[in-house]
């Protein structure tokens, strides 16, 4: 499987190198044929269903093992919800629902959701890339049972469209919309945990790019007769980015190796805290060392930093997970800290 994954990672890099550039990111609409071509190549290689069961036409590679793929996709700044599709399809497949073809996005949150006669009404919030697809996954608790709900003809009133962030996001109000399929989710699938892991892996991919951009920029840009990289003040700032990034990557490798079991559920919290914290530092420092050029739309840094700002707030920010960790330790056991940690 490792070899299989290696080949997939390599193929993916090639596809993304071929298609993704900064002008593509500035025109994320379904009419853009370049966007369509990119998606077609992605789909042709089976990437959307990489973690889907074989019986549904997937590769059945465990979701946690493909986190390096999520990193690569976001390291290239791919302006398509491939990461969202991979996670949605994984959850659908694990809930015994055959994932549809094409892009599948998910709702991070909902409000006043009502389900009656296989129809859904209410507000569906913070949906990435709703402009590119009709397929949507909602995870919703109904009579104490968590359900995966697939909608394949999403339609409704757009009540808010966020433009601050790089990827398009929508809040939408729906009324009596048909549900394509609804099934209970297995106990071991926790959407909030998986979402936090997904966003962290995306952040780490993007942060690697941001650090590289900063290193390259500072090595070329000259001021006071020498490149910025020769200034110790700059070197130290970039080192700080690298240090924070390496801590996040270490936290991610724990999840990639261990997955999400009973014993290591703290690792998701640790990962989201570290990645969110690192993102804050890295956004600030990368813009600082880039100067004004980094603040322009034309230069690609902002595409990544805007996304980082968005992802660090999804599925619980640092404070949310810090409280989660702290509460868990303080309330649920009487061990001393060292025993608990080991």
């Amino acid at each position: 499987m490792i070899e299989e994954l290696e080949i997939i990672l390599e193929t993916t890099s090639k596809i993304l190198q071929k298609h993704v550039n900064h002008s593509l990111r500035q025109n994320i609409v379904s009419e853009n044929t370049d966007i369509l071509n990119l998606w077609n190549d992605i789909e042709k290689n089976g990437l959307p269903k990489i973690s889907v069961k074989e019986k549904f036409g997937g590769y059945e590679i465990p979701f946690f093992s493909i986190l390096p793929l999520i990193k690569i996709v976001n390291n290239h700044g791919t302006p398509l919800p491939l990461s969202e599709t991979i996670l949605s399809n994984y959850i659908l497949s694990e809930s015994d629902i055959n994932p549809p073809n094409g892009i599948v996005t998910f709702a991070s949150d909902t409000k006043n959701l009502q389900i009656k006669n296989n129809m859904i009404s209410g507000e569906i919030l913070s949906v990435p890339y709703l402009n590119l697809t009709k397929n949507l996954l909602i995870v919703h608790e109904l009579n104490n049972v968590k359900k995966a709900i697939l909608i394949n003809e999403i339609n409704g009133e757009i009540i808010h469209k966020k433009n601050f962030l790089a990827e398009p996001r929508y809040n939408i109000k729906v009324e009596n919309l048909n549900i394509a399929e609804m099934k209970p989710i297995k106990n071991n699938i926790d959407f909030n945990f998986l979402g936090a892991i997904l966003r962290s892996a995306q952040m780490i991919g993007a942060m690697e790019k941001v650090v590289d951009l900063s290193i390259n920029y500072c090595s070329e840009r000259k001021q006071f007769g020498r490149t910025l990289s020769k200034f110790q003040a700059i070197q130290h700032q970039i080192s700080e980015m690298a240090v924070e990034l390496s801590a996040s990557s270490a936290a991610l490798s724990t999840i990639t190796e261990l997955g999400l079991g009973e014993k290591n559920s703290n690792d998701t919290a640790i990962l989201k805290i570290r990645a969110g914290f690192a993102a804050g530092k890295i956004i600030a420092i990368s813009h600082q060392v880039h100067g004004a050029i980094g603040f322009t739309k034309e230069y690609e840094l902002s595409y990544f930093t805007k996304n980082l700002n968005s992802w660090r707030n999804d599925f619980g920010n640092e404070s949310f997970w810090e409280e989660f960790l702290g509460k868990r330790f303080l309330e649920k056991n009487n061990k001393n800290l060292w025993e608990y940690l080991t």
Partner: protein
Amino acid sequence: MSKFNFPFIKETNELSNLRKEVREFITNCINNNEFTPSPDAWVFSADPSFSKKIGSKGWLGMSFPREYGGHQRTALERYVVTEELLSSGAPVAAHWIADRQSGSQILRYGNEKQKSSIIPRITAGECFFAIGMSEPDSGSDLASVKTKATKTKNGWKLEGRKIWSTGAHLAHYMIVLARTSPASEKNRHEGLSQFLVDLSLPNVKITGIPDMTGQRHFNETLFDNVELSDDSLLGEEGKGWKQVVGELALERSGPERFLSHFTLLDSFINEFRNSLIHSGTKIVGKLISEIQTLRRMSFSVASMLQNGESPETQAAFVKELGNKFEKMMIETLREFSNIVPLHEWPNQLQNLFEDATLRIPSNSLRGGTTEIMKGIIARQLGLR
């Protein structure tokens, strides 16, 4: 920027059992009043009899070969043992440097006589070391050392001064970095060599320097034309720089870079558990996330050392993050005194806290300053 990975390393059942064994031993020691847990114990708290006891348990020189009295265990096993000793504040200062770096350095570069005469004593907890790098005029700029070794008929003559030599007054040996030939114009790193110096030799003078806590661990070590035998040279003449860089990797990546004040955190949480449940879950969560990440990273470096890699840069990452964490931890505890005023803390906890507050500035100086760590990282990123 994916050059510096810290692959996940799992703690096997065998390692967990070893951890349990060490923990039981320590609990017994504490129950029998053999030691009182203290902060920064790997620097300040030396107890040769405790070191000997640890040695007899087989927990010193753990990864050294059997033929030299070692135990041929893995760097990961050593990691687990050191974590347990540090987190309990055990008095490990006497043997710390010998076990952490000097022994490995001798095994790697030493000649047969050096190995067979010294390594078995290190593993027995009977032979202690001090570090001979810094000098009055050479701190961060280590390559500028002026201590000089000159070839004589029978060996070498050592002349110079080393400073901040922690524990030199208790140590038997010091590995001294000295100039054996002038630095070349192009390369200041040339012409340095390492020497294994017996501190009981004539003309070695060790003077204590009280630190700002009033305690003595610092020393100035004067070598006033000390006659060294021919085989005091450690490794190759002129290759001292390369050797010392490897030694620093051993020095920087261990759990002492983030567990120096763990006893304080532990006592703090035990004392204020109930208040923390109401108003401190977030800070406790933050601290847990930091410690666990550092443990994973440091453990990962141990595994790199085990595999014979040279993780100098990764070690700098761990040290830098660890130093930052310890400062943040003390600051976090200080902030908590808004909820329970400091003067209402139990005496012992107040002492631990004040002690840590006093000592914390040294954590990002010893073993290489923050600025040096960042410089190392920047170089590896291609910025220098």
